[in-house]
C-alpha cells in the first residue's frame, strides 16, 4: 500500500482514533495488529518473509541471551576460585558459541535478502529502461531491506550485550514490523525504538498536531514536487539528452529524490510522532552540507549509522586491521596510518552500494562516494593551508560556494542510480566537458520534457518554499515550534493553506495527465 494512497490515510486515521481510545496497556498490541494488517494488505505472499526474520531473530537472540545468563551466573558463583586467565578463557568460549548463533541468523537473513535482490535485478533493469524506476521501490518487496537491517542490528546488539534480548516474541514482532517505517525506514536501533513502542502513551494534543503537520509537509514534498518533476526526469534520461541537458537531469533528480525520500520520511516520522513515538531523524537538510563527510552525516542518516556500527567499525578495529595499521605505519608514514580506515571505508561503501541494488551501477555509486571521501580526507591538510592563506573561511560567499560545489558533486554521483549500464553514465559525464548546448535552456527543449509552464511555476514556487523552510529551520529551529507560539487561528490558517495546496496541486489520482478530458469531444 502506497503511503500516498487514500487507503493509507484512512487506515492511519482509524488507527489514531482507536489508539487513544483503547486502554493504554493494549496500545502496543494494536500497533502490532495494525502492522500485520498493513503487511497483509500489501500481499499475503510476503508474510512468510517477515515471519521468518522475526522467528529466526527471536530464536538466535534468546539462545544468545540464555547462554550469556548461564555464563554470568557461573562467573559469579566461581568468582573466588577462577583465575583471571581462566575467566577470560571461559568468556571467550561463551562468545564463540554465541557467535555461531549470530552468524547462523545473519547468514539465513542476508541470504534471503540477497536472493530477493538478485531476483529484482531484471525487473529493475526493465523498470529503468521503461523509465518507471523509483529509488524507493528498491526496498521492495515491502521494505525487506529496512526491516531486515533493523532486525540484524538488534541481533548484533544482543550478541555484543549492548542491549537486552526481548523475551516476548510479540513485542519483538512489533519491533520488526512497525508499519510506518516498514516501507522506507528509518532503520532504528532496538534500544532507541523498542522501549517507546511498548510504553503506554497518553493523548498529547501537541504531539498529535506536530505529527500531522509533519505528514502534511511530507505529502507536499512528495506529491507537489517529486511526483510532478518525475515526468521530466523520465524524459531527460533518454540518450539524446547530453551536455547541459544531462546537467539539468542531475539537478531535477536531486529535487525529485529529495522530495520523494525526505517527504516519505516526514510522513513516516510524523505518523509515528502522532502515535507518541519518536523515530530518529533520517535527514538534516543534507543539501546544505559543505563537504562529503558532512553530507553523509545528514543524508539517510540511519543507514549510515547502521553501516558505521555494524560494518565500518568492526572491520576497522578488527585484529587483522590493527596489524595492518602497525605495519603500514612503519613503512608508509602518515598515509599508512590512515590506510586501515580507507580499507574499511571501501568495504563499507561496497556493502552500502549493493544494499541499494545488485547492479554494477550501485557498486560504482558506492565506490565514487568512497573515492571522494578518501580524496577529501587526503587533501584536508592542503585545503586548510589554502583556506588559511586567503582567509576564505571568514568570507560569507565562500560558504555558499562550498555548498554549491557539494550539491553539484553529489548530483553527479547520485545520478548513476538511473543508469544500470555504467557505460551510459560515463558517456553522459564525458558530454559535460565536450558539449556546451546551453541553447536547450531557451530553444523550447524545456517545454518538451513533460512539464507545462504551469508545472514549472508550481515547481519553482515549491522549491522556494522548501528552501525557505529549510533556511528557517537551520537558523531558528523547528517551524512547528515557532508556529505553536502564534495565535491558533493564524496557525490553523497556515496549515489549511498548505492542505489546500497539497490537495489542488498534488500530482495524484486518475486523470492527472488527462485532466482536460471533460471538455474533449464526445
Amino acid at each position, binding site marked *: 500500500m502506497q503511503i500516498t*494512497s*487514500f*487507503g493509507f490515510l*484512512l487506515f492511519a486515521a482509524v488507527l489514531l482514533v482507536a489508539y487513544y481510545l483503547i486502554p493504554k496497556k493494549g496500545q502496543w498490541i494494536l500497533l502490532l495488529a495494525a502492522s500485520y494488517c498493513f503487511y497483509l494488505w500489501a500481499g499475503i505472499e510476503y508474510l512468510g518473509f517477515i515471519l521468518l526474520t522475526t522467528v529466526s531473530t527471536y530464536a538466535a537472540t534468546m539462545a544468545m541471551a540464555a547462554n550469556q545468563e548461564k555464563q554470568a551466573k557461573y562467573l559469579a558463583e566461581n568468582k573466588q576460585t577462577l583465575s583471571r586467565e581462566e575467566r577470560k578463557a571461559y568468556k571467550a568460549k561463551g562468545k564463540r558459541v554465541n557467535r555461531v548463533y549470530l552468524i547462523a541468523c545473519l547468514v539465513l537473513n542476508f541470504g534471503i535478502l540477497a536472493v530477493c535482490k538478485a531476483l529484482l535485478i531484471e525487473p529493475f533493469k526493465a523498470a529503468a529502461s521503461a523509465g518507471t524506476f523509483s529509488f524507493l521501490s528498491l526496498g521492495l518487496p515491502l521494505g525487506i531491506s529496512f526491516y531486515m537491517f533493523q532486525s540484524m542490528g538488534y541481533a548484533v546488539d544482543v550478541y555484543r550485550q549492548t542491549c537486552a534480548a526481548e523475551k516476548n516474541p510479540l513485542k519483538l514482532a512489533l519491533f520488526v514490523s512497525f508499519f510506518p517505517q516498514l516501507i522506507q525506514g528509518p532503520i532504528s536501533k532496538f534500544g532507541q525504538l523498542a522501549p517507546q513502542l511498548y510504553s503506554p502513551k497518553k493523548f498529547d494534543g501537541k504531539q498529535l498536531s506536530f505529527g500531522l503537520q509533519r505528514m502534511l509537509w511530507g505529502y507536499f514534498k512528495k506529491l507537489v514536487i517529486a511526483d510532478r518533476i518525475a515526468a521530466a526526469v523520465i524524459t531527460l534520461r533518454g540518450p539524446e539528452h547530453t551536455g547541459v541537458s544531462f546537467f539539468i537531469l542531475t539537478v531535477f533528480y536531486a529535487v525529485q529524490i529529495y522530495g520523494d525520500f525526505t517527504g516519505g520520511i516526514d510522513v513516516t516520522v510524523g505518523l509515528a510522532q502522532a502515535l507518541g513515538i519518536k523515530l530518529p531523524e533520517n535527514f538534516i537538510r543534507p543539501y546544505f552540507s559543505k563537504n562529503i563527510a558532512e553530507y553523509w552525516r545528514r543524508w539517510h542518516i540511519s543507514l549510515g549509522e547502521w553501516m558505521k556500527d555494524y560494518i565500518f567499525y568492526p572491520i576497522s578495529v578488527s585484529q587483522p586491521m590493527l596489524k595492518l595499521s602497525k605495519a603500514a605505519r612503519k613503512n608508509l608514514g602518515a598515509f599508512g596510518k590512515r590506510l586501515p580506515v580507507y580499507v574499511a571505508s571501501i568495504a563499507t561503501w561496497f556493502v552500502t552500494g549493493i544494499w541499494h541494488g545488485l547492479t554494477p551501477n550501485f557498486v560504482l555509486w558506492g565506490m565514487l562516494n568512497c573515492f571522494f571521501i578518501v580524496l577529501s580526507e587526503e587533501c584536508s591538510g592542503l585545503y586548510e593551508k589554502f583556506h588559511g592563506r586567503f582567509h576564505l573561511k571568514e568570507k560569507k560567499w565562500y560558504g555558499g560556494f562550498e555548498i554549491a560545489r557539494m550539491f553539484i558533486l553529489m548530483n553527479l554521483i547520485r545520478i548513476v542510480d538511473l543508469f544500470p549500464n555504467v557505460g551510459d553514465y560515463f558517456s553522459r559525464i564525458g558530454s559535460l566537458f565536450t558539449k556546451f548546448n546551453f541553447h536547450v535552456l531557451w530553444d523550447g527543449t524545456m517545454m518538451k520534457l513533460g512539464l507545462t509552464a*504551469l508545472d514549472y511555476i508550481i515547481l519553482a514556487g515549491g522549491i522556494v518554499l522548501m528552501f525557505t523552510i529549510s533556511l528557517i529551520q537551520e537558523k531558528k529551529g523547528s517551524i512547528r515550534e515557532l508556529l505553536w507560539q502564534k495565535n*491558533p*487561528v493564524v496557525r*490553523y*490558517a497556515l496549515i*489549511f493553506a498548505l*492542505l*489546500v495546496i497539497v*490537495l*489542488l*496541486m*498534488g500530482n*495524484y*489520482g*486518475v*486523470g*492527472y495527465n*488527462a*485532466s*482536460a*478530458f*471533460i*471538455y*474533449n469531444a*464526445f
Partner: protein
Amino acid sequence: MKKKSIFTLCACLAVCLALLWLLQALLMPKYMGSVKEGALIGEYYDNAGNNDVVFIGDCEVYENFSPITMWEEYGITSIIRGSPQQLIWQSYYLMEETFQYETPKVMVFNVLSMKYDTPQSTGDQTQREAYNRMTLDGMRWSGSKWNSIQASMTEEEKQWQGQWSYLFPLLRYHDRWSQLTGEDFQYLFKKDQVSDNGYLMQTGVKPFEDEHIQPPLVDYTFGENSYYYLDKMVELCKQHGTQLVLIKAPSLYPVWWDEWDQQMVEYAEKHGLLYVNLLEKQEEIGIDWSQDTYDAGLHLNVYGAEKLASYFGKILVEECGVADHRGDAEISTVWAEKVKTYYQRKEALQAQS
C-alpha cells in the same frame, strides 16, 4: 483556557470543512455548456415520483424519446434516466435506486449495452472513466451508488483507489483549478435544467448518408456479466410488480447485429418479457433519416424523437396498459409547466441552429 482552545479548534475545523466543501463544488464540472449529458443523472431527483414509465439506458434513450410528446398525446407520465455510454450494471443500480423514489408501472431498458461485458471491454479507459463520472457523480448517496461505483471502476481507477474520489470528488477534480471558466462560478450553487424529464433535446439536422460497413464479429454471444445484470433487472422488477420492457432504439449506429437481436428475442420469450426492436419499425414510426437525425444516424433529433415517442406511447398504452393522466388536475398542472419549458427550449434551440 483549555475550553477556549478546544472551541477555537472546532470553529476553525468547521470553517475549513466549509471552505473545502465550497472548493469541491467549484471544481466539479458543471456540464451546463458543451457537455450537457453529464448533468442528466442529477436532474432526476427534481422530477422523481409519480412517473408511470421510467426509461433507463444510454444515449439511445435520452436522445431518442420525448416524454413531453408522450404526455401530450397519451397523458403518459414518464421520465428518462439516461447517461452517455451507460453500462448495464450502472443501469441496474439506477433501476434499484429508482425504486427508492417511485414504483413505476413500466421500466423500459435499452439493450444496446448488453454488448459491453466489463468496464475494460469498452475501449479507451480514459474516456470510460469520464463516462463513469457522468453516470455516477450525479447520483445521490445510497448503497446502489456505492455498488455501482465498485462495479464500474476501470483498472486505473482501482489502482488509485478511486472509490474515495467518488466519495470526495475534490480528489478527482483537484487539478481543474487551472481550467475553471465563468460557468463554474455561475452555476456554483444552482444549476439549470438541461433536459425535459431526462430527454436531451437536439434540433440540428445532419442527414444519414451512406452506410459504414462494419466487419463481422468473431463471437456474437453477449457476455456472462451482461446476462447476470439483465437477470437481476428481471428479478428486481418482478419484486416490485413492475413490467420490464426491453427495447432496441432505432439508431443505425452502433450496429445492432441480427445475432444479438436473436438472443434478445429468445431471452424475452424465456422470461415472458416484451421486447421491441424499433429498428424494424422505422417505417411505421415514419423516421426520415435525411431529416430526423442530428448526427447522421447515431441519434435522433427532436423531430425524430417526437415521432418515436408518438409511436412508442401507443405501445405503452396498448400493450402495457399505462394510464392517461390528463384528467388529473394536479398532475396536469405540473406537466403543463414542463410542456411550456419544452417549447421554449425548442424555440430557443431552433433559433440558434
